[in-house]
């Protein structure tokens, strides 16, 4: 690890906000050497409780996060927030506006709020998010809240990062057929019907209640053998985040869920599963790089495409040719 990175890591562990901010920047930029930096962070992690908040755009995620962070602060806990907003598919630019809602925590450095652009990645979570969570964890934050892009029906990356996932459902979010669909509604550990003062909120609550009752127990994570007694039915909490109403109840549910995760061994199972995913993702990245350099050594993708275009060969054969030398190395 370079000298600057060593200093930066020391400053981060020493509680310097500037260093934490800079480490996250390096992670986001995938600056050379950032992998060593994240490796070093790992031994210092494992103490934070990670909460994921997702839901459609305008559901009130940021406003709720603000109130929750404020509540934790009043309890004496420190908070890290990562809020992800979409980036332009054309210019890569982004307007990150979640910070505006953090009105309850201004001037309080112990709420470390970081806006991230999705930088083109799908699934609502920037690829750098889980590394940034590690930085906040190593820094010593008690609670880390990850707020996703308000994307919609397939916001499932978040389960891989968070211990507890809250899905915000606004009133008037469609009829009960929407509740039958797979995807976002399956990942919730708790449902929040926000803007509960608006018409349609009762309907949303009753539709969700019906859906929750039809659930067939919780799916077991990959490393879930040995977990016993984890029978959690996602509660439905009503909130009016802008007035702080229902926030206490919401946090009670989060605490209750975390206690159950811990006492049943589900927390460890989820963490193990998360590491497995992480190892696989890193290996996919590395394998992609190997393949990319193999393509380069064969004259680049354009040349391969040309041969396919001229009907001299086909995509399957090209793929076979490129992968064979790599395969040979592995089997040796």
């Amino acid at each position, binding site marked *: 690890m370079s000298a600057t990175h060593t200093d930066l890591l020391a400053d981060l562990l020493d509680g310097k906000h500037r260093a934490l901010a*800079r480490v996250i920047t390096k992670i986001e*930029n995938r600056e050379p050497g950032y992998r060593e930096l994240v490796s070093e962070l790992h031994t210092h992690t494992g103490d934070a409780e990670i909460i994921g908040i997702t839901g459609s755009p305008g559901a009130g995620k940021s406003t709720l996060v603000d109130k929750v962070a404020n509540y934790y602060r009043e309890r004496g806990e420190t908070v890290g927030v990562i809020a992800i907003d979409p980036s*332009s598919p054309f*210019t890569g630019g982004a*307007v990150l506006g979640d*910070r505006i809602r953090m009105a309850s925590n201004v001037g309080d*450095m112990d709420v470390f709020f970081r806006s991230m652009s999705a930088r083109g990645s799908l699934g609502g979570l920037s690829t750098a998010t889980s590394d940034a969570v590690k930085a906040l964890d190593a820094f010593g934050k008690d609670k880390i809240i990850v707020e996703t892009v308000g994307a919609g029906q397939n916001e499932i990356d978040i389960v891989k990062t968070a211990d507890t996932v809250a899905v915000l459902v606004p009133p008037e979010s469609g009829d009960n057929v929407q509740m039958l669909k797979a995807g976002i509604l399956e990942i919730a550990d708790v449902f929040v019907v926000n803007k509960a003062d608006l018409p349609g909120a009762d309907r949303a609550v009753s539709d969700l209640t019906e859906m929750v009752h039809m659930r067939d127990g919780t799916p077991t994570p990959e490393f879930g053998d040995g977990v016993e007694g984890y029978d959690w039915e996602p509660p439905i909490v009503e909130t009016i985040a802008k007035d702080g109403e229902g926030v206490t109840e919401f946090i009670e549910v989060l605490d209750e869920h975390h206690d159950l995760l811990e006492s049943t061994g589900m927390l460890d199972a989820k963490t193990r599963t998360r590491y497995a995913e992480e190892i696989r993702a890193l290996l996919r990245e590395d394998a992609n790089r190997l393949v990319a350099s193999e393509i380069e050594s064969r004259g680049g993708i354009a040349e391969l495409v040309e041969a396919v275009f001229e009907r001299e060969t086909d995509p399957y054969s090209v793929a076979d040719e490129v992968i064979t030398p790599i395969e040979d190395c592995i089997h040796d």
Partner: protein
Amino acid sequence: MSADQEQQSIRCLVAKVGLDGHDRGAHVIARAFRDAGFEVIYSGLHNAPDEIVQAAVQEDVNVLGISILSGAHDTLVPKIVEGLKEYDAFDDTLILVGGVVPDDDKAELKELGVAEVFGPGTPMEETIEFVRENAPER
């Protein structure tokens, strides 16, 4: 694109400070910066200097653009500069001021560490070009 590739991006905080409710200009700038490929964090209205400092430090922005149309720049900007210094963030943050600033005050702001003051009617391309050329590396 390989996931390991370095992905530098210019991050800008567009900040409104003080009792100044005019944010059309800030919105236009935020939008133009976005279209230039920057990541823009918008502060919203009526921020105190220490809120801006908190945001600039946590977001680790390369560029801090302060929009002040109230005439209170000579009290607000020094407080922000001071705050940034407190967190060792002053040296590698490009500070810009946008708004109506008399020439005498301009010189004073620049002495404080503001890189440039953009008055009304500045072409957007000029501001963007300035940011591209002067944004400190991360």
